[in-house]
């Protein structure tokens, strides 16, 4: 099996357990994303894979070969693993120019490699900085140099540690896309760490969600988006409307109507999460819509125009007509109803999830 396999990794710094029994597979030719909040151990995993930290417990295989084993303290040093690692702070060598930085890891500088580097520089639009030193480059330019430097020695697998977090938002999307295209062209296995779910969705073929040193869920972006295994995973992809209630008759009452939760026994408390962008909105009272499973009427309270979407607060009556709740709705495009207008809101059932409440 080619690619990177990390088996049952356990890691602690002093008394603090950073990774508790984590197993990950990053297949060749695919881009795998480690997604999770800071402190969940993603960077440590990367460093373990690269050999910059010693494995305490567990095993690591590269292209089917064992490179590290915690029990026997066996470890192949980083310089011999053939792994490319791109650091969050880029870590360009200040005393070398761009070309020399990129060429640093290339043992045998053949014409082919040289051509590859020159072409890559052109492809990524930094050819004119070939002889410049890192400190005169902008953040985006440094990021591209760091990427090329990691790729130039033709590693088996490329590890990226939050590669886009240092870039300003306006350019981030474009650079992301350029990077992804480039990586796909290179065909190398990629393991990327990020805390930005949108980034993960965009770039990954396979996502591994981590929290507090453990893998919570792994799967394709579609799987994770539509079938989250926990509230935590569901919440990763954006703000949710949360309703809590006691399960009665296999259902929980919400402002959008009763929501069936067969998995949780009656009498226990559960939470129902409805994605903001999964809720539609029409003016006035729409009887057809009200007949669907999760719909209700309400009054518009606030409207925020975000450019490509609109964010509305709608005041709706609570479950069984008791009390009130404010729904957060995000619709694409520009929608600007009057404040206080009557609207009908209805949710896409595929974007509503129920979980036990702990």
């Amino acid at each position: 099996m080619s690619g990177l396999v990390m088996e049952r990794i356990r890691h602690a710094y002093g008394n603090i357990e950073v990774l508790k029994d984590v197993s990950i597979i990053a297949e060749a030719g695919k881009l795998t994303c480690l997604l999770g909040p800071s402190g969940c151990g993603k960077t440590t995993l990367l460093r373990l894979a690269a050999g910059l930290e010693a494995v305490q417990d567990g095993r690591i295989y590269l292209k089917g070969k064992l490179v590290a084993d915690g029990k026997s303290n066996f470890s192949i040093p980083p310089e011999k693993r053939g792994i490319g690692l791109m650091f969050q702070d880029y870590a360009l060598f200040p005393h070398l120019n761009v070309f020399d930085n990129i060429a640093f890891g290339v043992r045998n500088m053949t014409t082919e490699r040289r051509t590859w580097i020159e072409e890559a520089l052109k492809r990524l639009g930094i050819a004119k900085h070939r002889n410049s030193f890192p400190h005169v480059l902008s953040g985006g330019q440094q990021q591209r140099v760091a990427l090329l430097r990691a790729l130039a020695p033709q590693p088996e697998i490329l590890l990226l540690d939050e590669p886009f977090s240092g870039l300003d938002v306006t350019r981030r999307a474009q650079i992301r896309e350029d990077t992804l295209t480039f990586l796909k062209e290179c065909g190398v296995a990629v393991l990327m760490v990020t805390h930005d779910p949108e980034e993960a969705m965009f770039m990954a073929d396979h996502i591994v969600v981590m929290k507090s040193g453990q893998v919570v869920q792994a799967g394709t972006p579609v799987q994770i988006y539509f079938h989250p295994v926990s509230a935590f995973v569901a919440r990763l992809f954006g703000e949710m409307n949360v309703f809590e209630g006691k399960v009665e008759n296999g259902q929980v009452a919400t402002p959008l109507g009763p929501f069936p939760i067969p998995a949780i026994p009656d009498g226990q408390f559960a939470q129902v999460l409805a994605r903001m962008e999964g809720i539609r909105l029409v003016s006035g009272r729409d009887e057809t819509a009200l007949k669907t499973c999760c719909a209700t009427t309400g009054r518009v309270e606030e409207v925020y125009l975000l450019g490509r979407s609109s964010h509305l607060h709608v005041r709706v009556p609570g479950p069984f007509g008791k009390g009130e709740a404010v729904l957060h709705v995000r619709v694409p495009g520009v929608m600007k109803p009057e404040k206080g207008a009557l609207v009908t809101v209805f949710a896409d059932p595929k974007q509503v999830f129920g979980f036990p409440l702990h």
Partner: protein
Amino acid sequence: MTNAASQTATPNVPKVPAISGWALGTLGIALVLAAPMLWVLGIAAEPSGDIWSHLVETVLSRLIWTTLALMTGVGIGTFIIGTGTAWIVTMCRFPGQKIFEWALLIPMAVPAYVIAYVYTDLLEYSGPIQGLIRDLGGFETRRDYWFFDIRSLGGAIAMMTLVLYPYVYLLARAAFLEQSVCVLEASRTLGRGPWASFFKVALPLARPAIAVGVSLVMMETLNDFGTVDFFAVATFTTGIFDVWLNMNSPSGAAQLATVMLVFVIVLIALERHERRLQKFHHTSSHIRAIVGYKLPPLRAWAAFIACALPVMLGFLLPAAVLGSYALNFYSVTLNANFWSFTLNSLTLSAAAAFVAIVLGVFLAYSLRLGRAPWLNAVARLAALGYAVPGAVLAIGILMFLGFIDNFVDGAMKSVFGVSTGLIFSGTVVAVTSGYVVRFLSLSFGAAESGLAKVTASMDGAARTLGAGPLETLRRVHLPMLKGSIMTAALLVFVDCMKELPMTVILRPFDFGTLATFVHQYASDEMLPEAALAALTIVAAGIVPVILLSYTIAKSRVSNLGAQTEPDAEGGQ
């Protein structure tokens, strides 16, 4: 957002286990370097009779106050002159600025006692200045007019400030050059004018460097003997010599030296602790060239004068005086082993600089690799030689080398029946090792600060790119350290050229350096005979000093030929 701070503050470089060949080797070397000081502490452990009660009753408080006053005065003076001129020269453009960049460093090459002799000759009662005043004013004796006494605490402060401010200038300038212009511009847009930006932003950011510079200066001041002895200013160091020689109590002297050492350690620890609470990362990674703020004519002339004064008083005037003496007396100098002394000075200084660099880099590098705290403590002890008066340290070296020599001799005699005699004692190795132990802190500090700029990510990057530890050292660390190493080498070289007490005590037979030559004559107020030698010391120091200035300026934005503005395409 993962913690970038952890990657730069405490390097998570692949560590070497605490007990390993490398760690033990480092410990061995550090112990050898620290041994002379440990010997001094050993002498201090012997009882010294009633020396202490005598000192406390009589002079101790005066010694302490005078020493503190001296250190404070010199510290403030060098801070103002060093930092001020560094700022002016770095940030402004005015006539002569390019020359002042390196010229301001030259007084460093002048030994303090030489400048003391020169100004005494000029300013004392029977000197030309007072003579002129008397002629012009028609005065008869010194009671008729007021003139300050150069041979006083104030005079000593002035003399030492003049030759020590370059240390602060050097480090402040390096720090200012490193700062991103963007940080300063940010300060300007937030409503702080240029002066305020200097005081509130640039100065605090440069604080670690300036602190190192001022502490260097203060230690040099603390250890000075020639100047204060000549001016009859009673400091702690003169007290040490007094107890040693006049009260014939080496143990008392060693005890005083130990007290001084502790004082220095406390000072350094305090400063470091305060600094620990602050982080000095350069947050703006985008560095643009400092173009320099062109000064309007009036201010340009003020800047010119502000920079010209230290150079004139610290170098030009003494050089002129010495030059005039040399013209009259050069034949005396040239007759007396001048050339061999010059060769000795140059060779020893160069050798010591080389060894100090190698050891300093080695120690700093080891500390970076290993995690053992005791290693840290021993290495820092080894670098404390700077804080001990030269003559006292020399005694430690004598005893250490003597011990080794006699030990080896004894072993050889019992095993092989052959006597090897003295191997190191009384040879140039003794003098060179004295220099190395004394000045190690310069190279160690420079290597440490240079290595601090190498982030853990860079180490990791090099490793993942296929470079093992040694290759990383060669291709990444050493090139990045080049600037610091050059600086340290030049500083050690200049200091060794000036060094006096250790050389006198440790030297081989029939051996002298330029410094001992100058002292021999100058101490008997025959400075004119030694003027040429004194000038040679200064001249030998000028070349390294200019190199130093050049190195610092170059280490900053080189290669700006490519561009200075953020590009429109794909840039931030």
